[in-house]
């Protein structure tokens, strides 16, 4: 399931819903991204997340579909916020439920890595020198790239 929203989310409730009534789920892996205070002097008061409505949902749905194609998943969830956020705020939640631990763990890492390079969101930080667009990290490209190379994996066929 995909949700793009301004409001915060309740991780406990979201994860509980992922396996609710499905006793074939053996594990739920999740990743929560938080707003960091990156400035050395702790001067970032807030940030604003812009996105491309329509394409965002399309890309997130495609990423989720790809995860289900690669791993045996019972359920999955991607929630991404937009708008104004302050340090410590939750930005994103990805979670995967599977009968198998490795499938849940790997697909969770896959979802956040792909989302980072494919979902059309942009961060603008309000720093001491005024607002500034955050630059993309080459490490994110490298993290996504490794999933492009590793199509097959153990759990799906094991």
């Amino acid at each position: 399931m995909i949700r793009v929203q301004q409001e915060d989310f309740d991780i406990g409730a979201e994860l509980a819903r992922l396996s609710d009534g499905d006793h074939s789920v053996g594990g739920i892996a999740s990743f929560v991204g938080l707003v960091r205070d990156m400035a050395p002097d702790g001067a970032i008061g807030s940030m604003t997340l812009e996105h491309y409505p329509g394409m965002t949902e399309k890309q997130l749905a495609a990423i989720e579909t790809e995860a289900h194609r690669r791993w045996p998943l019972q359920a999955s969830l991607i929630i991404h916020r937009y708008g104004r956020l302050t340090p410590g705020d939750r930005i994103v939640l990805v979670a995967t439920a599977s009968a198998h631990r490795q499938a849940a763990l790997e697909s969770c890492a896959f979802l956040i890595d792909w989302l980072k390079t494919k979902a059309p969101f942009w961060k603008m930080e309000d720093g001491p020198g005024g607002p500034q667009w955050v630059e993309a990290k080459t490490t994110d490209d490298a993290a996504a790239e490794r999933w492009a190379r590793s199509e097959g994996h153990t759990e799906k066929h094991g």
Partner: protein
Amino acid sequence: MKLLYFAWIRSKIGIAEEEVAPPTEVTTVGALLDWLAARGPNYAEALKARAVVKTAVNQEYVDPDHPVHVGDEVALFPPVTGG
């Protein structure tokens, strides 16, 4: 054709979206960018680092040689930084 601009490409161009009617020889995304860059200094500045300008046609990522048609929704934006 509807153009959408995001993040610093939007800031530099100065608007978030516009309707354009490029000449008929503009048949690809790459040609569209060239045509746009010649429309004024704000466009030239926004599009000068061409390698970091990502493009989507009808909400799907595309390469510069992808065709564009009347009625398409074409978006220009820098590398994404969400998550």
